[in-house]
C-alpha cells in the first residue's frame, strides 16, 4: 500500500535533514505506529505519503502509484484515497459536526444523495450521530477528534494517516480514540499513526517503525515504544 525506497528529504535548501535513505513497506490493512524522538521525521514521512512535500530523492509508491511521477492535477485524486487526522483536529468552527463531515464529500463533488447517505453512517461509526448538530466548540477534545476521524474516513480511504491524534487528549479519551482507529483498521483500512504515547504503543502491540534522525532504526511486528 505504501512503499518508501531510499527516500531523502531536506528542508531549507538542504540544511535541515528530515529523512535520509528511508526505506520501508506497509501492506494493505496493516496498523503501524511511527515512533521516534522529536524531529526524527515522523511528520515528514506522513507529508510525503500525502504528497504535501516532495522527496529530494528516492521513490514512493502509494496505492500502487509512484507518486513522484504523478502530474500536478492528479494529486487531489491521490488524496481522496488517503484520510488524515491531526493532533489539533482541524475542524471548521463555523460548521456543525454533520457539516464538517459532509464538507469533505462536497468539495470532491459527491452528489447530495450520496452525502446524506454516507455522513450519518460514519457518524454512527464514531458514535456521534446524536451530536451531529453541535458545533466543534460544544464538544470535548475526544469528541472533536472523533469528528476529525469521521471526516477522514467518510470517503472510505485506503489509508488513514494520523499524526499524534491523541497528543491533546486525556488518557481515558485517548483509549476511546485508539479503539475507534482499531475498528477502522478492522474494516481493512491501512492505518499509520505517529505518536509519542508509549502507553498506547506498549498496550496495543502492533507493528512499530522507529525513526531516528530520518532513518528507520527499528521495525518490529508486535513492537513496543522503547526497546
Amino acid at each position, binding site marked *: 500500500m505504501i512503499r518508501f525506497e531510499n527516500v531523502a528529504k531536506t528542508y531549507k535548501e538542504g540544511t535541515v535533514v528530515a529523512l535520509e535513505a528511508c526505506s520501508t513497506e506497509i501492506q494493505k490493512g496493516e496498523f503501524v505506529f511511527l515512533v521516534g524522538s522529536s524531529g526524527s521525521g515522523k511528520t515528514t514521512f506522513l507529508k510525503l505519503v500525502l504528497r504535501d512535500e516532495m522527496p529530494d530523492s528516492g521513490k514512493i509508491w502509494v496505492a500502487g502509484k509512484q507518486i513522484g511521477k504523478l502530474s500536478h492535477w492528479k494529486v*487531489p485524486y491521490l488524496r481522496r484515497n488517503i484520510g488524515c487526522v491531526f493532533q489539533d483536529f482541524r475542524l471548521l468552527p463555523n460548521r456543525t459536526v454533520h457539516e464538517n463531515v459532509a*464538507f469533505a464529500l462536497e*468539495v470532491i*463533488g459527491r452528489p447530495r444523495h450520496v452525502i446524506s447517505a454516507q455522513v450519518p453512517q460514519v457518524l454512527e461509526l464514531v458514535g456521534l450521530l446524536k451530536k451531529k448538530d453541535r458545533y466543534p466548540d460544544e464538544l470535548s477534545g475526544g469528541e472533536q477528534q472523533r469528528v476529525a476521524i469521521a471526516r477522514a474516513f467518510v470517503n472510505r480511504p485506503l489509508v488513514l494517516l494520523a499524526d499524534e491524534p491523541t497528543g491533546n487528549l486525556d488518557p481515558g479519551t485517548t483509549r476511546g480514540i485508539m479503539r475507534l482507529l482499531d475498528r477502522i483498521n478492522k474494516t481493512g483500512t491501512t492505518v499509520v499513526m505517529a505518536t509519542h504515547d508509549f502507553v498506547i504503543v506498549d498496550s496495543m502491540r502492533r507493528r512499530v517503525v522507529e525513526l531516528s534522525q530520518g532513518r528507520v532504526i527499528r521495525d518490529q511486528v508486535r513492537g513496543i515504544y522503547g526497546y
Partner: protein
Amino acid sequence: MAISVEYVVKETTNNLWRNWMVSLAAVVTVALSLSFVGVALLFRQEVDNATARWQSGVTLAIFMNSSVTSLSNPQAKAVEDQLANMSQVSRATFCGQNCAYREYRGMFRGDPTMESAITNPSQLPVSFRIKLKHAAQAGSVGSVFTNQPGVQAIEYAKGEVEQLLKISSFLQVASLVAASALLVSSVVLILNSIRLAIFARRKEVEVMKLVGATNWFIRVPFMAEGLIQGLVGALIGCGLTSFFVSEFRKLIAQNNIKLLQPMTASAGEEVVVYILLLIFGSLVGAGGSAIALRRFLDV
C-alpha cells in the same frame, strides 16, 4: 470535474459579504477610475466631433476693406482669382454684406449692445471664407494676401478651436493619469479583498486540499469574487460616466455656452465606450484575482 454553480455562487457571496468594506472600496475605486476613463474617452469623442464641424467650415478668412462691398469690386475679384489658382485651397466662398449680417445676428442674438450696434448690412465688411486641403498650410496661404490692396485682415479660425482642443487635451491627460493611478489602487483593493477572503478561509482551504478537492474547485470562488468586483465597478462606472456627461450637456444647453454646444457623441459611440469600460473592469478584476491567487493561495 464539474463545479456546481450553486456552490460557486454561495461561496463567492460569502466571501464578498465577509469583507464587505474592502469589497465596497474595491468596487467604488473601480467605478471611479473607470468613470474617469469613460468621461475622458467620451469627451475626446465629442471634441473630435465638434472640431470636425468647425473644420468642415472655414480654416481661413480674408476680410476686405469697408470700401469693398461686393464681388464686383476689382480688388475682391483679384483675390477671388488668386484663390481659384492656388492648389492648396480646396474651396473658397465669398461672404457678402448680407451673409456677414446674418452671421452677426446669429452670433449676438439677445445682446442689446451688439444688436443695436449693427442695424444694417452695409456696416459690415465682406470676406472670403477658405477651406484648405491641409489646415497646416493656413499660415502660408494667408501670408500671400497680407499686403494685398483692399485686404483689411486675415483671420485664422484657430482661436476658439485650438483653445478648446488644448483645454480638453489637458483635462484628458489629467483624468487619464488619475484614472491609471486609481486603476492601480483598484487592482490592489481587489487583490486585497481576495487575499482577505483567502485568509478568512485558510482553514477550509487546508481541509479542502487534505480531502482532495481539485485546485480549480478551490480557486474558482475567489476568481469569481475578483471578476464580480471588477464588473460591478465597471457597471457603476458606466452609470457615472453617462450621468456626468448628460449633466454636463444639460448645463451647456441651459446656459447657451456656444463654444461647447457642438459637442455630442452618437449613441453608438457611447455604447463602444461603455463596452470598453466593462472590458477594462473585468481585466482589472481578473488581474487582481490572478495576483492574489498566485501569491496567497498555495494550490
